[in-house]
């Protein structure tokens, strides 16, 4: 068995190397957030950590980061709630309420196609539409755009989970006189709870991370965190430390969710892709 042990060690070595390649740049920027501009420019490996970058990021008058953080939280939370509210009944309807076959095929097909199209192609017409309605630079506009961008994933993921519900359960409930809304609320929602969690986490993260649309549909008051970070990077004299601090704080929700819901995320990202 010497051969297999060596092979196993080799595979671990390759995987550990890849993990290091993933972690190293992230760890490095996290450290950079605690360096002074001088320590950063000198490339000091050892340095005295300072809070000045976070100070400037959060409390300087020229920075809107805190407000943008609030904007991002609000937009991600509301658009995620809307995706779940729209996608759950839709997924149930498509698979269990006896539509002719072309209906689920059309809705799921369009979901797939729309999910794969570059969002930047949609930003133009959204911009013109929202501006004509007076919704440019508002929360409503960006929430609507994120709802449209994430609804396809919501419908696909929840479809996977709805299909796993045993039909017998529903038949029994029907016999007991259960109406469709009761069925949805008392049977489907509790049974797809893990699916709802996976969908919620993924939609939240996608909305939180989304940049191309937020860049063009928001202004100073409604800007999200990615837009704020991009602004730091484009100033004439880039404050690298402050940009790093902004990047670190913006990754916190993702890392918290990763720690709390890793299993859900993996299931969500891979659901439907395998079968």
């Amino acid at each position, binding site marked *: 068995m010497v051969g297999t042990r060596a092979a196993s060690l080799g595979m671990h070595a390759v995987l550990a190397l890849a993990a290091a390649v993933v972690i190293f740049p992230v760890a490095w920027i996290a450290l950079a957030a605690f360096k002074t501009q001088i320590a950063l420019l000198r490339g000091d490996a050892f340095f005295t950590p300072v809070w000045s970058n976070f100070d400037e990021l959060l409390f300087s008058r020229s920075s809107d980061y805190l407000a943008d953080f609030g904007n991002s939280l609000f937009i991600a939370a509301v658009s995620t709630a809307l995706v779940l509210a729209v996608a759950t009944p839709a997924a149930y309807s498509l698979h269990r309420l006896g539509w002719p076959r072309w209906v689920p095929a059309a809705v799921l097909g369009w979901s797939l196609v729309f999910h794969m199209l570059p969002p930047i192609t949609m930003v133009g017409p*959204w911009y013109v539409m929202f501006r004509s309605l007076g919704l440019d630079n508002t929360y409503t506009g960006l929430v609507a755009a994120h709802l449209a961008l994430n609804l396809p994933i919501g419908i696909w993921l929840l479809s996977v989970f709805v299909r796993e519900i045993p039909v017998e359960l529903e038949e029994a409930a029907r016999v007991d006189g259960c109406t469709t809304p009761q069925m949805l609320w008392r049977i489907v929602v509790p049974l797809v709870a893990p699916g709802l969690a996976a969908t919620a986490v993924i939609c939240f993260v996608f909305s939180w991370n989304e940049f191309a649309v937020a860049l063009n549909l928001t202004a100073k008051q409604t800007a999200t965190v990615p837009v704020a970070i991009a602004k730091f990077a484009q100033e004439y004299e880039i404050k690298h430390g402050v940009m790093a601090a902004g990047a670190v704080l913006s990754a916190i929700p993702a890392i918290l969710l990763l720690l709390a819901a890793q299993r859900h995320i993996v299931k969500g990202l891979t659901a439907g892709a395998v079968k």
Partner: protein
Amino acid sequence: MAAPGTAGDAARWRHYTLAPAVAVYLALTLLPIANLLVMSVHDIRWEQGAAQWSFAGLKHFAALGRDQLFRDGLANTALFAVSAVSAEMVLGFFLALFASRVVRARVLYRAVFLLPILIPGIVIGAIWKLAYNPDFGIINQVLGLVGLPGKDWLGEKTLAFASVVVVDIWHWTPFVFLLLLAALESLPQDVYEAARIDGASAWQELRYVTLPMMLPAIVVTAVFRLIVSFKVFDEVYLLTGGGPGTATEVLSFTIYRRFFTEDRMGYGSAMSVVVLFLLALAIVLALAAARRRREEA
């Protein structure tokens, strides 16, 4: 009105439950796409918050063929997609294969590889902008330690393109890894036992057992990644802004530039229409091919 629990009740609720999703798709995806088509044959100006449209015919589409930036964007995006995705597929496949063979720490590897998928694309851009910095970036520092000269990673044309591809590989290999690992874990194990009893070597097992069974998952993942890589925007926006020259100009960025930076909405719309049409065609062809495969199998 139908009594609760009857077929009539179900038929009514069938519409109520699907209506919101259909309404969202109509109002926020199909209507804007129809609008995009109309915009592409107009010149649009904003006057006091109202859009002024004047008919432009097909002039925008005719201009597309002469637009060097659009041609460069198209060529760069295609090259970008092919080079990044092929590297991601090879790396992702072998990492997934190895991870499926090790028992200990598999969960840990999977958690680590989730990181690039979950952090914002713009942050990935920021990370690599710092790492590539010619003066104090970590890459040149490490090269300096081993006595190699540093480079201006984002400043020279070929190098800048390669640097952006590397960032995409860093970003998306973990995604390929996750999908292929899930597929590997769902393969039937008895085939492997049979192969081992027959004395197959590790290489033969890979070549004659794993690869054939994994082929559908590999093809689906590759096609998906190829099409989705046309979305690339955030990293390019932050790292190079399409430069130097047009070395890293990708389609998403060209559309953004024409539409928003230059305020040429009709022309930007025409560009979007062409890109949407090409991608939709590719998606439909891919789906049709996948369906034929399934029906043959």
